[in-house]
């Protein structure tokens, strides 16, 4: 079975449910309940890390998209567009790049 987002979420919820049963148990000791709480805390952190990793990977995809769009813009410019606004735009971008380079230096 493939480990999908949905399945991962279900595993997390199932694990929490088992630990919650310990927490709510009439027979579990205080120490056992404390251990269950700690385990849930650990599970939370692992699940958060998995989720933020996934969001960051998505951002990478978006960034790749933005790079492609930059190439699209460059292609339009290189095609010698007669549009005056494009030329002005290019000038602005060059100016912005200069500022950024100076900032990086």
């Amino acid at each position, binding site marked *: 079975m493939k480990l999908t987002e949905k399945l991962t979420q279900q595993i997390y919820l199932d694990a929490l449910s088992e630990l919650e049963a310990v927490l709510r148990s009439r027979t579990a000791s205080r120490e056992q309940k404390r251990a269950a*709480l700690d385990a849930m805390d650990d599970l939370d952190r692992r699940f*958060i890390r998995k989720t933020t990793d996934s*969001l*960051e990977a998505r951002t*990478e995809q978006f960034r790749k998209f933005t*790079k492609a769009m930059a190439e699209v*813009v460059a292609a*339009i410019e290189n*095609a010698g567009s007669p*549009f005056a606004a494009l030329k002005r735009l290019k000038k602005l971008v060059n100016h912005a790049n200069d500022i950024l380079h100076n900032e990086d230096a």
Partner: protein
Amino acid sequence: METRSAIGRCRKRIGTGQRWFAGLALMLAALTGAAGCTAVPHHDLTAYRKAFTEAREASMHIINDLGLAWHESAAVLLEGDHDDDDDWQAFDPAKPAQPLTIDEQVLVRHQLWLVTGRYNDALAALAEGRSREQVEGLVNGFLASVRELPFRKLADLAAGAHPLAGVISESLFLIEREVQARQFHRAVEAGGPLVDAILLAMQQEISDHYDLRLVLNTRARRELEAGLQMDLLPSFLDIYESTGAHEDKQPALDAMNDALSETFRYRDDQLLNAMHDDAAAPPSPAERSQLMMIAGEVKSKGEQYAAFREELLSYQQVLKLYYELLDIARYRMALLRQVAAEGGEVPVDDLLLAAIRLHWQFTKYRNARTGR
């Protein structure tokens, strides 16, 4: 007369359950000078553009909320014990040396909506058959929005199995070809799959939005439950059992079990047992009062617990509507590309209704959060 016939057409197309929203949308359309409820003529896409703007604004709330949840989650990770595992996570050479901050990652999503909106403006202008100058202005607006994206943060990523990669390279080829052929109309059309891929990716990450809120919500509920299990219940049982289980303590026990089952949703086997001891002494007024006070506190905590649960359910509804809205936006833009090429009509009522529903549900969700 024309408005009435428009309403009639609208009612035929949508279900009775949606009529209230349809009525609201029609009123909005009338107030904003839109042409009708279900379709707009080729030469006027004002209503469509307004609907798209509404959709974009509604989506801003979702992205901002993601940013908040992301920050809260980062704080949870920082609270945890620092162990060696944190220092030795899997090395990924494709990752940039300096990752984006959370705010920058959220901003990328906002900017992509901006790009999508500008692209949509250019597309709508083509579909309306506007003048070359007007189209030029809007195409440039789109390009300018692309330029505003955080190129400075771009890293050369290793070629991988990114879902967007295929779409990007194919679209890029088509766009370049059309631009070189001076077919700007077709170039915009060819850029469609790129924007579509972005909306699809946003749709796919909705499960991550939910997962972050799920953990945060679960933790908030657990904090209440930890207080219950580690403090309130032991205190209650200490008093209850100290002088024996006299039947005069039954009202307090009932109050406690009611709070546990109704708000914390405890199962029967998790409730406190009543084992009356005939030899036990009756509780003093102070003991009775203490027991009732603790039961009352458990009820109060339980109500907070239930409110958190409701909040999560409300967020589920928000995300369902957001998913639906992205679906409709993708479909409408695909249709608009077709209209730009071949003419025809673009229905707008479903996009506007989806935006209104999302706005409304998000307001309910936000009120549930601030009201607790």
